[in-house]
Structures are given as C-alpha cells and as structure tokens.
C-alpha cells in the first residue's frame, strides 16, 4: 500500500504519456517508420529480448558505464578531498577546471578515438569525463563547507591532523559527497550512448546506430526506452542509498 502511494503518480503520468502517444500516432496518420506507435515499440522491445540482443547490450553498456564512472569517482573523490583540504592549491586549479568543464564530453570524442582507438574505450572515457567534473567540484565544496564547529571540536580534544582528516573531515563531508556521486551518475549515463556510437560493436548506443542504419524506428525507440528506464533505475537505487546515509548521519535530504 505504501509503495503504491509513492509510485501511483508516476504510473498515472506514464499511462497518460503512452495514451497521448498512441492517440497521436492513430489520429496523426504518421508513417510508423518515422514515428512508431507504442505497441510496435513494445513488439520491437520483445524482438530485442527474444533474440537475446537486449540483455547483452545492457550488460555491455553497464560494464563500460561503471568502468568510467568508478574511475571518475575514485579520482574525483581523492582529488576533491585533497583540494578541499588544501584550499590554497585549489585556487590555482579551480580556474582550469571551470574552463574544462563547459566543454561537452562529446567534443573530446575525436581526440579520444585518435588516442585510444575505437571499441570499448571511447564510451568509458566519455563517461569518465562526464562524471569526473561534478564529483570533483562537489567533493571540494563539501570539504571546504564543513561546519567550522566540527573543527573546533577537533581542536577541543587535541586531534592530530591525520585524525582530523579521518575522524572529522571525511565523515562530515561524506553525505554531500554522496550527493555529488548521485548527480554524476545521471549526468554520465546521458553520455554512454554517444560514447557507444563511435565504433562500439555492442551496447545500447550501438543498438541505436544499428537501428538507424536498418531504418527500424521501432527498435530505435525501444533502445531509447531502455536507456531511459535504466537511467531511472540507477538514479532510484542511488537515491535510496543516499537517503539511508543521510538518515544515519542525522540529516534530512530535501
């Protein structure tokens, strides 16, 4: 009952969306090859599942995604903690980051292909670039914005610098850091498709390229639906983890 209460707006929203979509395709008389109705997308989805294409694509995409994301998280967190702690150094690095950040990860693609070749790597690198900047920036700010009172407590009890870092700064910044990781997961997932459109021979992005080449609008749309649903699931799972962390830290997440 409780779960129903939580998800019923989403269920209604999606139902209306699909209904509008179906009506539009019925009344509009569009060419289904250009604008497929929901039912043919479902059958396209079923075709992908039946032929075991979809599962493989999902596994490949998730594999590349997490390779890039975990690398970005590791580097972003370590550097973020460092620059949050040594804020003077950050003053030199911040302008560079602010300069690099607005450059879309897609703009890097030609270089990525030139340097690393095609295959799995471009998608991993694109996801890395997309995830790295938000994680780095939010980690830096979460460390530098730590409640001064916690540092006063540390001084009060005479904690060593290492203890201040491990026992105060890390846990104090932790909830905000997870928010950074949460935001980055959504941002980076958007780019997995672009990464897989250059030369990958598998994955959801490849599915899109493949469907386009075969003029299969239903499969194209089906792949898009799967990408959206996976993004939703990733966000939901991370959101739940984040909520738990906030609750344990005695904070509420708005």
């Amino acid at each position, binding site marked *: 009952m409780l779960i129903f209460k939580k998800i019923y707006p989403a269920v209604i929203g999606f139902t209306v969306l699909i209904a509008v979509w179906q009506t539009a395709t019925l009344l509009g008389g569009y060419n289904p090859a250009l604008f497929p109705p929901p039912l043919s997308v479902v059958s396209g989805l079923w075709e992908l599942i039946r032929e075991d294409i979809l599962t493989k694509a999902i596994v490949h995409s998730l594999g590349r995604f997490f390779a890039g994301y975990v690398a970005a998280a590791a580097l972003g967190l370590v550097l973020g903690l460092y620059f949050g702690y040594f804020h003077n150094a950050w003053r030199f690095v911040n302008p560079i980051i602010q300069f690099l950040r607005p450059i879309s990860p897609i703009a890097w693609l030609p270089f990525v292909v030139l340097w690393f070749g095609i295959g799995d790597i471009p998608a991993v690198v694109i996801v890395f670039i997309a995830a790295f900047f938000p994680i780095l920036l939010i980690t830096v700010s979460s460390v530098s914005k730590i409640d001064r*009172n916690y540092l*006063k*407590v540390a*001084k*009060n*009890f005479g904690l060593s610098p290492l203890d201040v870092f491990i026992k*105060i700064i890390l*846990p*104090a910044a932790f909830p905000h850091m997870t928010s950074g990781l949460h935001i980055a997961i959504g941002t980076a997932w958007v780019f997995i498709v672009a990464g897989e459109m250059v030369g990958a021979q598998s994955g959801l992005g490849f599915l899109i390229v493949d469907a386009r080449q075969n003029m299969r609008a239903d499969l194209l749309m089906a792949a898009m639906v799967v990408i959206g649903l996976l993004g939703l699931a990733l966000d939901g799972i991370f959101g739940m983890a984040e909520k738990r962390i906030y609750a344990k830290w*005695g904070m509420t997440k708005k």
Partner: protein
Amino acid sequence: MFVKVDNVSKTFEQNGAFFHALRDVNLEIEKGEFVCLLGPSGCGKTTLLNILAGFEPVFDGTVSVGSSVTIFQNFGLLPWRTVRRNIELGLETKKLSKQEIRGTSDEYLELVGLKSFANHYPHQLSGGMRQRVAIAGALAIHPEIIFMDEPLGALDSFTRMQMQDEILRIWEKRKTTIMLITHDIDEAIYLSDRIVIMSPRPGKIQEILNVSMPRPRERNLPEFLNMRAKILEILHFTKEQQPPDYYL
C-alpha cells in the same frame, strides 16, 4: 593559581573600525572552583572563553590555563558518531587500549545516566541528553578545567534546572574546576562559588561576587533574592524605587 588572566584585551574590526571586545580583563580561578561568567549578550564572554581555551590565539596580555576542554553551546557532538563514540573521541587521542577506552566510556555513560543510550545517535536524543553526552565526553579525558559556553541556553526551563543539578552533582563528585558562561542570573547564583559580572562596550569585568550560600541552594530564600537584586543593580536593570520585576 589555576587560571590566571593578566590584563587581557582583545580588539575586533567591524565595518572598518576597531573596538574593544575585551579591555584589561584580570581574573584568577582556584583549583576546584565553580565560576560563572555573567553578562548581557555581546559583552565579550565568548571572546574571553575562546582566549582561555586556546581558540583565539591573537590577543593582548597573558593567560595561563591548565589542560582544558570546552563544552559548546551547540553541544559540539559529531552527528555521525553514537553517544558512546562521541564520549570516546577525546579518549582516542590518549595512549589507551581499546578495552581501557571502552571501560572509561562505560564509566562516564553511567555517570551521566545514559548507559541505555550508548548506541543512539545525537539526533535521537533530547537537548538535555545531548548536553549530558557533551559533559561526559569532556569529563572522560580528565581535564583540569572545563569551560562551558551557555551550555543550558538551548534547553527549556525544567530541563535546564535538572541539568543545573546534574552539573553540580558531577562537579561535587569529580572536583573539576568549572567556568560556565551564562546570561541567566538565577543560574549563576544557583551554581557558582563566584560570579564574574561583565559589562559591554568595552567588554570588561564589572564586579566579582562571592556566593557563600550552602548548596543545594533554594531559589526563593531571601539571601538568593537579595543576591539577584544586587546583580540586577550592578547591571543597571533596576528602576528607581521599584522592586525588580523582570530578569534576564
């Protein structure tokens, strides 16, 4: 002398102008004494405490203080640590084994009556309980002096009176030296051996009063009320020919 404050002055800059948050403060505190710093907001109480506790290294004059721990107005607890682990924070900096730390935190959980809340988090506790955790954590490392900055300011008046008794009980048991900041006149009279009355602009010590009433003190005995009237007078809170009808 346990705490010695010699001609301490402190200036702050505000809107480009310098002003004295403290001017020529002199104070001595004996071992085992319970001293209250009393005065209106902005008279420099926190500034003086910050200097004594070492949080404010820049000032004029000299101070000498033994090992101290401060209890902050917001309790200074770490929200991600349980009650027990909060009490153990200071102990972890000492060269103690795990069992010794456990044993000591057990002892202080017992002392402040929070044994059954050892594994709770601060946000699951009431204000009074959080304050007891802070006190336990401070006592556990055996400081020579405990500074408290308006430790009961955030509590409702009933919890507040309970906590005053609690602080007195612990102080009598442990004989730690305590300097407590308050802007509550009754609280100062109820608790202290001596009341240091401060006045603002510039922040200075106006007068130091001895409180010789035996404990536990009764809040509506004539002696208590006389003391209150005297303090109100010192703080210029009495109207001519009228009994005091309000207090801070």
